[in-house]
């Protein structure tokens, strides 16, 4: 069992073995979560604060349930409504919270790197719940767990990530993770939604969806933000759906047993056909949500173990 991280800031810092450790533990939590009594004492006595500087219902709920099932005292702070509006800086907010001795800080922020910055200033474990266009590590881990359970392995798979790659932290974390686990990753989308020099990340880039999906094992769709649909990045919603929306026809180019994933929330009829999203034979979108709770429990459990170790090894104050 290997997991040496103090924080979970991004997939970039994880070793493949640490990813495997985390997923193995998450598998156990999947079993726990399916029981009647869904409770463990792993985080008993610890305080978890969820700081969301950006709206999120699903991720925040997932972290909250994960913490509560592990016995932590969980508090949610909607940061948009609070002091940040009064001009307090991110670091001041972090220092204030730090003085309350939290053990786990779960942070989402609209700017890339903000969670890294915060982690430097506090002495508890920090989990990145999404920072700008940078990383969203727990999403990539839950996707990995979903794939591993559906396909029986997490290596040597052909995986297509489709849609708005450029603005997506989910895509970044996923392509790093899937690359580390030795899969072939393809990115599919219009050139306006591709980050620059993305071909240097060891991925194959496709502008044609049918070509990009040919013989893949996994199709990962991304959400297209509404504000990007009106002529700025793509000409229109309907042209986007026509060229990049996933429907049965486009999916027919993938392997017969290919699974369909989406991080949610979905825009039905924009990036994915509604019926396909609900097709229990192909879509694993509900499983992703379930795995999300288990992966977050595993991540917090492992970080809490390291936190306790570091505290017990710390020199005793006299």
């Amino acid at each position, binding site marked *: 069992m290997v997991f040496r991280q103090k924080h979970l800031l991004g997939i970039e810092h994880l070793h493949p073995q640490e990813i495997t450790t985390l997923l193995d533990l998450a598998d156990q939590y999947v079993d726990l979560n399916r029981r009647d009594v869904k409770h463990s004492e792993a985080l008993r006595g610890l305080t978890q604060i969820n700081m969301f500087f950006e709206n999120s219902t699903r991720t925040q709920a997932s972290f909250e349930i994960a913490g509560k099932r592990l016995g932590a005292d969980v508090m949610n702070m909607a940061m948009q409504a609070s002091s940040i509006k009064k001009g307090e800086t991110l670091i001041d907010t972090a220092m204030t919270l730090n003085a309350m001795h939290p053990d786990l800080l779960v942070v989402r922020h609209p*700017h890339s790197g903000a969670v*890294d910055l915060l982690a430097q200033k506090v002495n508890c474990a920090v989990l990145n719940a999404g*920072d*700008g266009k940078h990383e969203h590590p727990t999403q990539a881990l839950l996707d990995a767990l979903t794939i591993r359970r559906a396909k029986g392995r997490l290596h040597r798979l052909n995986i297509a990530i489709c849609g708005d790659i450029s603005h997506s932290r989910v895509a970044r974390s996923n392509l790093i993770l899937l690359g580390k686990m030795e899969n072939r990753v393809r990115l599919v989308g219009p050139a306006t939604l591709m980050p620059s*020099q993305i071909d*240097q990340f060891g991925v194959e880039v496709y502008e044609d969806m049918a070509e990009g999906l040919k013989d893949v094992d996994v199709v990962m769709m991304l959400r297209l933000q509404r504000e990007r649909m009106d002529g700025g990045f793509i000409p229109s919603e309907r042209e986007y759906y026509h060229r990049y929306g996933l429907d049965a026809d486009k999916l027919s180019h993938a392997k017969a047993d290919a699974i369909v994933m989406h991080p949610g929330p979905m825009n039905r009829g924009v990036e994915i056909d509604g019926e396909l999203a609900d097709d229990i034979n192909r879509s694993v979108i509900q499983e992703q949500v379930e795995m999300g709770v288990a992966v977050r429990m595993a991540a917090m459990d492992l970080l809490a173990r390291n936190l306790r170790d570091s505290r017990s090894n710390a020199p005793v104050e006299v």
Partner: protein
Amino acid sequence: MSLLFTNARLIDPEAGTDNAGSLLVENGVIVDLGPNVAMPARAEVIDCAGKCLAPGIVDIGVKVCEPGERHKESYRSAGLAAAAGGVTTMVTRPDTEPAIDSPETLEFVTRRANEAAPVNVVPMAALTKGRAGREMTEFGFLMDAGAIAFTDCDNVVTDTKVYSRALTYARSLGALVIGHPQEPILSKGAASTSGKFASLRGLPAVSPMAERMGIDRDIALVEMTGVKYHADQITTARALPALQRAKANGFDITAGTSIHHLTLNELDVADYRTFFKVKPPLRGEDDRLALVEAVKSGLIDIISSMHTPQDEESKRLPFEEAASGAVALETLLPAALRLYHAEQLTLPELFRAMTLNPAKRLGLPSGRLSAGAPADLILFDADAPFVLNRFELKSKSKNTPFDGARMQGKVLATYVAGQAVYRRD
């Protein structure tokens, strides 16, 4: 009173030489130099012990935060930093709060500078009122009050009609205009240079092409108006061919670059280190190497510190929100000497870009080691190693990207008009 420097390594950017010799100063002016300088009857003799004696640096584009943000940098603190860094002439920027865009504010600045700074201060004034890009400033009055050049700094004048008229008017007065070559709409909101690194970090980025578009536009306007033009910072390889063509066509155009773009690249940002956030953003290593080559060939004329003080609060923010800019008056010389120690540029080549060329461009008599030039001199040890501690800087703001960096090159003494304004203890 005579002052004789003996046993010096004379760095003469005009002659392009780096030879042992002596240098004689009388009444604040260099009167003789070379291997055989006659010893006058009464002179203070300074034995340089084989260290380098060079013209003091003429730094175009120093931001002193007066008026408006004196807590970031005052004329006093900037002047002390300049003296310690070997900068004998600060050519100051007008991007203060409010902007230096009227003869009255310019006179205030000049008075403050003369009272407080131990080095020469030559002010620039805004090209348009409030640097807003709508109405030109009173070039005539401002020149009478001492403005040496006109610039809106990093605010690009987007209205080409306003810009072309301002350039035409400036040409009629023989004024030098300093532009910031950048396509402002393409670069809006950018915190990094587009490419693999920016994509990995998820930072808003601008293509290096935005600079090339900016310089292309400005060159067309130079051709149209005939104005004397200097590009403040060329930072990408893609902009160089356009600059070369413009010079070959005989336009009155020169270009600068910043010490940070010559010695750092985008990867130095690492995990969102905001002290490395400058404007334009740091570029790739290929660009940096092309810039070094361009300084060597003389295509890029001038190296500046682009000294931009920022307080801790404006840097302790997520990278996108953090302020741009770095202090550099005290690190300009040791950073530049990295290029000398890497054997990419000789000392005369470096000093040509830091002293002679800026002085010539601004019509100043300093920046050279020749009889008749003012004795603005620096004595420095090009090899002395040290680790930079930002809290030892004399600038009020400590936002240097070189904190903790191993550097070589210490200023031993700085002279302005023959008077010592700094001596290393």
